[in-house]
């Protein structure tokens, strides 16, 4: 006791944190003329009286009361937006290709992740999310990135096969049929090239094998490699269009044509698979991608 008092003697005298630290899921403002209300998870920036104007990944809520009560990073609600479109274009060009159209029926629909499998390698692209309001597209919200991968990929909407081993030289042939007519009374012949036919065809040769990567180590499944290759060949020959893309940026929308060959090179586990392809459409065209079952959204004019 000290002067007859035990002022640090009660049960809760030595609590380090006396305030409840509960989740907050309700906020109410009143009793004033409110200009701005901003909430962020950032607790490291120095004190300032300037309210941030940029929405970033720490921002939780920002109500500006500019004629509405929106406090998110979108000044629309699911009642006024019917779809969001995801588009892509090569940076520096004008033409967008619509890849996805997401219907908005509930708030959760605003947050999504989509996979774009049909971008070339070593190419800087821009992607945009575009809100659609009664047929009118809103602002294009754009971000850009340069693609990067290694080896050769053959993909469709559902499967991906990949190789970076024993890739043969890929030198596809550009085909444009023409006829040379040799007249009698002229020195020079006529070259007749009717129509717009102009496409690539070629051959891919590489080793396709199932692999698993653990950090720096790669393990190959040699035991059932023939099964993996059989599954690959079944998929190649299923009659559906594919996208072939090479890490240097070349890409084609193709059908697999002809036979599929295999050859061993020095060891029975070192098998190279060879198949032919013929280009059947424009891999950068929304309409060709849609008509060949690679995307689900059709946009007239793209």
């Amino acid at each position: 006791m000290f002067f007859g008092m035990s002022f640090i003697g009660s049960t809760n005298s030595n609590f380090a944190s006396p305030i409840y630290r509960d989740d907050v899921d309700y906020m109410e403002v009143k009793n004033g003329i409110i200009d701005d209300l901003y909430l962020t998870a950032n607790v490291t920036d120095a004190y300032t009286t300037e309210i941030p104007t940029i929405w970033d990944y720490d921002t939780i809520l920002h109500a500006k009361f500019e004629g509405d009560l929106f406090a998110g990073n979108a000044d629309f609600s699911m009642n006024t937006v019917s779809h969001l479109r995801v588009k892509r274009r090569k940076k520096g060009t004008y033409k967008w290709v619509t890849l996805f159209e997401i219907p908005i029926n509930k708030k959760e629909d605003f947050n999504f992740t989509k996979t774009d499998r049909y971008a070339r390698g070593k190419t800087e692209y821009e992607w945009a999310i575009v809100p659609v309001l009664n047929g009118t597209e809103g602002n294009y919200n754009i971000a850009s990135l340069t693609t990067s991968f290694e080896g050769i990929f053959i993909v469709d909407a559902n499967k991906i096969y990949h190789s970076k081993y024993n890739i043969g030289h890929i030198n596809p042939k550009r085909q444009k049929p023409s006829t040379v007519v040799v007249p009698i009374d002229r020195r020079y012949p006529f070259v007749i090239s009717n129509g717009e036919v102009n496409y690539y065809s070629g051959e891919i040769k590489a080793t396709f094998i199932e692999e698993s990567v653990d950090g720096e180590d790669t393990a190959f499944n040699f035991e059932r490699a023939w099964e993996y290759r059989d599954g690959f060949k079944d998929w190649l020959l299923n009659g559906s269009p594919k996208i072939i893309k090479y890490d240097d940026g070349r890409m084609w929308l193709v059908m697999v044509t002809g036979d599929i060959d295999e050859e061993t090179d020095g060891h029975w586990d070192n098998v190279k698979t060879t198949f032919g392809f013929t280009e059947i459409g424009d891999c950068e065209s929304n309409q060709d991608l849609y008509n060949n079952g690679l995307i689900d959204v059709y946009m007239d004019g793209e």
Partner: protein
Amino acid sequence: MSAPIITTIIPFDAILEYILSFSYTGFQVRKNRIIIKNNATNVTVFDETITSTLLKHTIPANILTNGTTYSVQIQVYDIDNNASPFSNTIVFSCLSTPLLSFSNLNNGDTVKESYINAQISYTQSEGELLNNYQVILYNYAKQEIYNSGTISGTILTTLISGLEDNSQYYIRAIGETVNHIPLDTGYVSFLCKYLKPSTFSFIEPKNNEKEASMSISSHIISIEGVINGTPIYIDNNMIDLTENGLKVVFDEAFSLSEDFTLHIQGKNFTSYTDFLILKNSQNNNIITLSWMNYLDSTRTPYKSYAKLSANGKLGLYTLFTERINIPSSTDIIHFWLRRVDNNYEFKIANKGGA
């Protein structure tokens, strides 16, 4: 002796003069003669010799008739009036000038959407069909930014999207008829200006090297407050909640579980009342910000401050800002609140008149 050669003649409008060119290898040409016959009746409609060393002959306007097919031959003469053999016979037609235009867009129009569905109108009096065309979009400097590529003449609309708000564009269509008559709408200018649903959502692309794909993520957060009355906005950037009982509540799509920093600013706060409440709807633990006045000995307010109240294990925890001079009715008061672990910082500032 060689004969002149006439190459294919694309149909032309008979009401305009036409310069017919030909080639000739031989003596130096002093004169040339052109004979044009009606191809159906073989009647000669035009037979003219001119003195000229040029390998061309002008067919005057209105000598021929649109909708008619003709045949033409040419022969040339040397200085001694020796004539060459007649050239090959070329059959050609005269057709009225076809018109290619945009039916839904005039020069100087304002387009109120981010896309344009350009509609092509084609007319030709004698039934000459449109073969194909292209639609080209240019920016304000007439630099080409989009080309539709060749479109069949049976499809008369093309969609161009991605137009930017408040931007000047030019659009033009060029094409040809089935007999290769060139067509051109010329540059048609328009301004794109639309009321748009704006969003500053985040789009985040990520490179997935293992699958040679890009994942595209959106981070759109849609939070909308609810008011228990009619909102009154001031200058379209503030809301008046001074009416007794009127409040705006945010309780959907909003959750705060970590440390946070909060900014709130406004004016004309009602003395001795709460202006902000944060709450956990399950257990009702509340953080309240209140606007207070400091009274002098005569109980006259002479300073203002804000008070934070929070539920704690020891009862109500309170924290006060510094005191400031009584603000005027136009002064914007800024409050800054930070919670880190269980510790709060709470500051006030007068930012002056709005």
